[in-house]
């Protein structure tokens, strides 16, 4: 019998549940890619993946470390360009779900990956948007994967790289952006929201995590309903899929393999 899923593994399965059969999904590498692959090999066999570097509808081999890793380019429909994917698919409106990460997510689901202010008041430079702004500007559903740390959940991002609900209900429309729903998945909980709400609400907790555990690690208070669901364990077959097929060397779960993450 397999060990039950850790909360970081559960995050992958919970992300996979956000992908429906036949949808077009844009993913980078890491946990979002694993989530899309879990979906593809379980409940959503006809999910179509696209990768910003130009890879259209590939079969993925274990275990890509980059959006240009050749392991991500197996048997695709096309190997094209960044313009084709971020322009011809994402901005064109052909993508259903976008997966992102970020350094900060705020109360209104805005995402920062450009710079943060350090404890010394100095700006700490981060990589920047990449395709994230494009994805958050044009996709109708966004799934954001985050490590749940207090510094990563400020009331307001130091810099809005990728638009969530901006200043609140109606703000996306006023800015010229289409409506969007957002799911933020962390190792502690699931947060959700859409344009009409204009802010995030606590939708579910990871097993063994309390509402207070979540709130203690955030600088804002999300909407908290009376009853909050608990994320369920995946079937053992799906755990085996993740651990033995999709990421056999545990590249994305170094804690499970007793490794330390490189670089």
């Amino acid at each position, binding site marked *: 019998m397999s060990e039950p899923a850790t909360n970081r593994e559960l995050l992958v399965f919970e992300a996979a549940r956000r992908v429906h059969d036949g949808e077009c999904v844009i993913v980078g590498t890491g946990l979002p890619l694993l989530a899309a692959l879990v979906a593809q090999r379980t409940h959503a066999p006809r999910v179509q993946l696209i990768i910003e570097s130009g890879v259209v509808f590939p079969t993925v081999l274990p275990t890509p*470390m*980059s959006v240009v890793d050749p392991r991500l*380019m197996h048997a695709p429909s096309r190997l094209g360009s*960044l313009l084709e994917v*971020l*322009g011809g698919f994402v901005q064109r409106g052909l993508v259903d779900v976008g997966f992102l990460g970020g350094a900060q997510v705020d109360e209104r689901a805005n995402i920062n990956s450009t710079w943060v202010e350090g404890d010394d008041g100095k700006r700490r430079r981060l990589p920047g948007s990449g395709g994230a702004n494009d994805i958050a500007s044009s996709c109708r559903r966004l799934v954001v994967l985050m490590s749940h740390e207090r510094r990563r959940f400020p009331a307001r991002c130091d810099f809005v790289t*990728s638009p969530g609900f901006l200043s609140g209900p109606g703000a996306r429309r006023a800015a010229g952006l289409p409506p969007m729903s957002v799911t933020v998945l962390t190792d502690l909980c699931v947060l959700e929201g859409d344009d009409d709400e204009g802010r995030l609400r606590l939708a579910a907790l990871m097993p063994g995590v309390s509402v207070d555990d979540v709130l203690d690690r955030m600088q804002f208070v999300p909407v908290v309903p009376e009853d909050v669901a608990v994320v369920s364990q995946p079937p053992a077959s799906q755990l085996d899929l993740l651990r033995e097929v999709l990421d*056999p060397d545990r590249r994305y779960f170094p804690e499970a393999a007793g490794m330390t993450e490189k670089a």
Partner: protein
Amino acid sequence: MRDVLDGTTRLDGTARLDGTRGAGGTAASFAAAAAAAAASAASSGADEKCGSASNDDKVMSAAEAVRRFVLPGSIVGMGGQNINRCPMALVHEIVRQGVGGLVLMGCNLSLPADMLVAAGLVVRTEQGSGNLERYGTLFAWRRAVERGEIVVEDHSHLTMVTRFLAGSLGLPFIPTLSLLGSDMAPPADGTPRGSMAAAVDPWAGQPVVLLRKARPDVSLLHVHAADARGNVIIEGVTSHEIEMAKASAVTIVTCEELVEDHEVSRRPEQVSLPSAYVGAVVVQPFGAFPTSVYRRYDFSEDDIVEYQSVARAGDADVRRWLDEHVRAVADFDGFLARRDPAGTVRAELVSTMETITMETITMETML
């Protein structure tokens, strides 16, 4: 000509050989690049175009290509993305020649950009991202930005490639639906900020962002194959490279393989970039090492991790690394020989790539 400007170029990158080149590039920059080529080309013909040596034979060494086309203060378009097909051989040569005051443009700036920054050759970057994904950020770039030594204009990947698209089409600007509402967006009153300005779609009445064209003075690409005329064949994804090269005054390519003209003529639809945009062809097998070339060789994780650990340690460390591995050798073959004396690393990377690009492979057979 190369001594006209040195590393003291103005931070906005506008001080140039012809004094007029802004971030958008001009016909004058095109002429300057061509003139520079003509000045140093021993065999320059009267019919020179696109800064080429000769339209029939643009093959030259990396040292010569960099001497001709990468001038102090040049706006340099950076090919490659993350761990794939980065123009490492050309960037090593720029480090050896110490060409400074550079403005780097690209979508994802990666390993080669970090080396140019670490060598103190960069004054400004315009990019969608600066990182190596799972292998970490660009440590030298990050430190230089945080110290205020490099001016940065932030874009998304799509807006950078859209700017190159405008440049490639000869358009002054082009709209995008990205950036709207974010902190990268320009002022709502339409005042331009950097290469962006807010506007309204005249038909739909909806907000858009206008992007100024981007026109690098010289772009650097590493490709699979080229013929002597400069017709380029790239296999696999091209990221932003084709739009960027077509927007540039001139492009230098290093290639894994030089092919006969007639091989290209037989399958012209497979040409990724026609010769009109290419000024120099440098034959350099493993010219992207330690990054990958699709169907040729995988990336060298050990070498990338080593560079990242050196770069993370500090500027003195990475300068020492550049001294030992780049400046101490004559050319990129010298670097490869130093890194991998017996060729075993390269053989392994070729073998790995063969395995993962086999058509019959499945995820299960990888196990």
